[in-house]
């Protein structure tokens, strides 16, 4: 028994020594928390990591930028799983730690936000790609919640149009992550963009139903690489990859092939992925990217809260009309004529003279 006591003492001693080294810092931080009444902004990540080069990262960059510009403390948490309980727990952790403004990217938060909007009435929530409901898809958006949607179909349309115009002839394909509404709308928009180019600008770009695939996850990089390799082997020239980490796998495959002189392309998603596709010097396999300005949305909402104009209770749509989607400003792999035609289509989308459908219709799954 005595040796156990000795052991315990050793442990306590170790803790004490380690603790003393940084004790001063604790006290300081404690005081800070009490003094600062400024807004503290939190974010909970969706499935996938914070550096997924698309959805989570885009949101976090918007939050970070707002934090820098307005001098706010920011923090993100990564839930242990993807169930509603996991999300509610992490949101609760942020709110309990006095982060009273929480940004949640992803439709999976819908029921969790429905729960917390009543549970924490003094906190504000931004839900991207979804609206709060009780599991029955009846929207219930309280005053402390704003729900944001993007017109992914319009973004995908521009990506498809640009790809078809640039290729003129060839074959395009699609790799999706999970078969969720945002990814589906990207896919359907992309197909409409290609068809639009074929009809109006007499391009001859082929699409084959076998090459429109949802991999089923957002993080299986290896699977993305395998899928892309199979498609390129079948003669596909460009792949639209709306798949988070799976898309990174596709990009890697395209980079490897481009390095050996093969002409293969990827259409990026969510953010401008040009830098991600660089394989040599400043040459990239990213033809263009079908962007949704998640970072801008997150930033704008934080700014609105600081200005006292938080659009609580609303469901906002970010589309071409309010510059919520688009392709990057600079596309080194697109000809200027192609960019001009895409800009024309963008203007038509804004004016409402061109309408892209956000349902499947006759398109591929």
């Amino acid at each position: 028994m005595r040796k156990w006591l000795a052991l315990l003492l050793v442990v306590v001693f170790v803790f004490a020594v380690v603790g003393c080294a940084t004790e001063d810092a604790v006290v300081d931080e404690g005081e800070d928390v009490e003094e600062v009444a400024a807004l503290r902004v939190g974010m909970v990540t969706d499935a996938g990591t914070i550096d997924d080069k698309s959805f989570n990262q885009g949101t976090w960059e918007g939050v970070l930028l707002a934090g820098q510009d307005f001098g706010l403390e920011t923090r993100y948490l990564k839930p242990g799983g993807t169930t509603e309980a996991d999300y509610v727990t992490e949101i609760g952790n942020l709110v309990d730690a006095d982060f009273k403004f929480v940004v949640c990217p992803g439709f999976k938060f819908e029921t969790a936000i429905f729960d917390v909007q009543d549970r924490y009435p003094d906190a504000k929530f931004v839900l991207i790609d979804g609206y709060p409901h009780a599991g029955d898809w009846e929207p219930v958006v309280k005053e402390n919640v704003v729900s944001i949607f993007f017109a992914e179909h319009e973004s995908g349309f521009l990506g498809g149009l640009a790809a078809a115009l640039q290729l003129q002839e060839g074959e395009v394909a699609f790799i999706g992550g999970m078969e969720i509404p945002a990814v589906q709308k990207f896919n359907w928009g992309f197909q409409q963009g290609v068809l639009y180019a074929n009809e109006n600008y007499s391009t001859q770009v082929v699409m084959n139903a076998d090459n429109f695939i949802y991999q089923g996850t957002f993080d299986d990089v290896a699977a993305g690489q395998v899928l892309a390799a199979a498609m390129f082997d079948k003669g596909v020239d460009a792949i639209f990859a709306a798949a988070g980490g799976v898309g990174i796998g596709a990009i890697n495959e395209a980079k490897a092939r481009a390095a050996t002189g093969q002409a293969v392309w990827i259409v990026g998603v969510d953010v401008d992925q040009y830098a991600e596709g660089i394989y040599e010097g400043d040459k990239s396999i990213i033809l263009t990217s079908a962007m949704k300005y998640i970072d801008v949305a997150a930033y704008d909402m934080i700014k609105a809260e600081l200005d006292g104009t938080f659009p609580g209770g609303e469901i906002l749509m970010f589309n071409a009309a309010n510059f919520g989607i688009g392709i990057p400003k600079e596309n080194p792999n697109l000809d200027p004529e192609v960019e001009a035609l895409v800009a024309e289509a963008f203007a038509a989308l804004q004016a409402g003279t061109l309408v892209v459908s956000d349902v499947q219709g006759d398109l591929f799954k």
Partner: protein
Amino acid sequence: MKKKLIVKKNFLMSLFAVILGLIAGAILMFVTGSNPIEGFYYLFRGGLMNIERIGNSLATATPLIFAGLSVAFAFKTGLFNIGGAGQMLIGGLCATAVGLTFDWPKPILLTVIIIAAMIGGALWGALPGLLKARFNVHEVVATIMMNWIAYWTVFYLVPLYLKGPFLETESQRIPMAASLKVSWLTSLFSGSYINLGIFLAIIFVAITAFILERTTLGYELKAVGYNRDAAEAAGIGVNRNIVLSMAVAGALAGLGGATFYVGFASNMQIGVLPSQGFDGIAVALLGANSPWGVFAAALFFGLLHTGKGFMNAMTAIPPEIADTIIATIIYFAATSVLIERNWDKLNKFRLALRLRKSKQESLEDDSGGEQ
């Protein structure tokens, strides 16, 4: 008397492993520039701060108890069940399917859900058991493969039969009538995710302990685990017991799946292997494969998992480091077996030393006597 001693020793070993794990976690926090005391303070506070969080810790621990029991039970028969995740998935699938299909009163529906989950899990466990008994296919390989079969089965069946009107990737929401959550318990723990699963877990810990310690079946299972040939020679049906052990282990994990998918969570998502299935191995190791040990170990892990987020939110420790810290604690905690082995060695060494010393002393005494 001897048994009590063993239990006490196991407890000390596990405690030592936990302390070692916490120290390792502390070092990691220190190295990454955070204050370990602050970190641990918020970690435990996050799991115990109020009644809601205590409830959440218990709710997080519930599937871990079952997963740990499953591993521990198979281990008593000398089998290593890595298939907890797959068995949980199938148990959860059966539970979800029953819950979404039938519209019976809650007590009846829950009973059927529990039985369905157990049957599903038992089948998923029995198959590798059968392969082991019949063809000597190693159960580690077989259960891992069964995990992936379960993964893709769920991937295929949920969108086909159980999905809601909009989403392709998850089942419909479990109605309250089919959920292990009950309103009195939820409000008792002020809105926590705690559910009837925790009571089920306690009941099954007791049942498992009873089977293993007090029945012929338990005796036979353990005999097969200690020495297969000796058991065979003593007239115990080894093959039968292997299949049986795996089936029971599968049923326990399946039940864990039910508590996870129709208790903790509110629907079933495709494309995810429940991590609890693997954490169950660590739980069983830390719990020294005894049912009540598993229970305690799972509560500890539940506490860690629940407190982690609060630690993240209150300190500058990033989530990735926090995950690493938790994993380190679990890793060290799971090495209690190793510690035990070395402990025994150390003890033997000491004993040998002491023996030699006393021999020398007695020799000296003898020589002293001669003078």
